[in-house]
C-alpha cells in the first residue's frame, strides 16, 4: 500500500480534503486577519498624526492677495502637495476660510455656491456649510477638513494642518 508523502497532506487529491479547514487553521486565519487590521489601523492613525505634526511645524505660505478674491469669490490651490486640492473662500471683507476640496464621501472635488453659502459636491449631491465645513445634506457624514489661515498685510496665509478652531 502506497503511503502518501507529507506534502500530499497539504495538496490532497480529494476535493473534501482540499476545502477542509481545521479549527486551528481557522483560528490562525482569524488571528492573523485581526492583527493585519490592527496594524493597518495603527499605520493609518500614525500617518495622519505625522501629517498634522508636520503641518503644525511648517511655516505659513501666502496663497492669495486680498484684491485677487472678491467677496463671495474663491481660489483653488494645491498644498502641501500637488495631490491635495484645497479651496479658499472669501465670505466677507475680512472673513476667509479654507478647506480641503475633497468631499468626505468619495473624494470628489467640492465647488463653492456663493448664493447659498454652501460647498456642493456634484457627484452625489453632498452639501457642506461654507462657514465651517460641516455636512448639511447628502451622503457625507464628516465635515470638510478646515485649514488654518490668517490674513497678514495684503495677503492670505495658510499653515497646513487641521485648524484647531474647526
Amino acid at each position, binding site marked *: 500500500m*502506497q503511503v502518501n508523502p507529507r506534502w500530499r497532506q497539504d*495538496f490532497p*487529491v*480529494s*476535493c*473534501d480534503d*482540499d476545502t477542509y479547514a481545521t479549527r486551528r487553521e481557522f483560528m490562525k486565519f482569524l488571528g492573523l486577519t485581526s492583527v493585519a487590521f490592527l496594524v493597518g489601523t495603527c499605520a493609518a492613525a500614525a500617518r495622519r498624526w505625522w501629517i498634522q505634526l508636520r503641518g503644525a511645524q511648517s511655516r505659513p505660505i501666502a496663497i492669495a492677495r486680498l484684491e485677487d478674491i472678491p467677496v463671495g469669490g474663491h481660489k483653488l490651490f494645491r498644498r502641501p502637495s500637488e495631490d491635495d486640492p484645497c479651496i479658499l473662500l472669501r465670505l466677507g471683507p475680512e472673513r476667509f476660510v479654507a478647506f480641503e476640496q475633497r468631499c468626505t464621501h468619495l473624494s470628489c472635488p467640492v465647488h463653492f455656491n456663493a448664493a447659498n453659502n454652501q460647498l456642493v459636491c456634484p457627484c452625489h449631491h453632498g452639501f457642506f456649510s461654507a462657514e465651517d465645513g460641516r455636512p448639511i445634506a447628502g451622503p457625507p457624514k464628516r465635515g470638510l477638513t478646515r485649514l488654518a489661515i490668517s490674513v497678514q498685510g495684503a495677503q492670505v496665509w495658510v499653515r497646513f494642518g487641521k485648524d484647531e478652531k474647526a
Partner: protein
Amino acid sequence: MNGYEFFIDPSRCIGCKACMQACMECDTHRGRSMIHLEFVDRAATTQTSPVVCMHCEDPVCAQVCPADAIKQTEDGIVHSSIKARCIGCSNCVLACPFGVPHYVAAIDQMMKCDMCFDRTSIGKKPMCATVCPSQALYYGRAEDIERLRPEQPVNEFHFGQQTVRTKVRLMSAPDSDYLDFDVLDYMEGAPLPICK
C-alpha cells in the same frame, strides 16, 4: 449515486459519434466534446472505441499535477482542472494511461470527462450514455448488465508494473479479472495485441 455505474463495451461501438455530439451539448463545456473515439487499427478495421475518463481510484493525472488543479470528489469522480489553478503544463495528458485529458490551447486549460457531474450528481445519466444507440456506453446497475450481457466488467488494469483501478468498468472477456497491457505491444513494429 443510485447504485448506478458506468460501463464501456468497445466491441459494441459502431462509430456513429452520437456520444460526441451529445457531449458537446453539455452546458458545462458547451461546444466541446470531452469524449472521443479511437480507431483500434484504422488500416485493418473500421472498429472504433469510445474513450471517456475511467475515473481512477488513485488518479494519475491528479498525482502528477504540479498545480494541484485536478480534484476527486467523494463519489470517485475526477474532475476537469480547476481553471484558476491549471497552468496548462499537460503533465496529466502525458501521464494518463487511457489518453483522456485534453489540453485546450485556446483557454490554456486541461479539460476532461467528468461523467457529466452536473447530471449524475442529481441522478441523471451522462449525456453520452443516454444517446449511445448500441449501448456501448451504458450507465446502470451492475446486476442489470451482468444479467443482460455475457461479458465481464473489469475495472483493474495493469500497465507494466502499474496497477490502476477505476470507477468506470470495461466490458471484457468472461472470467477476466483484470486487463494486462504492455507498452511494448503498442510500439511501432510490434504485432497487434488484438491479433495475439
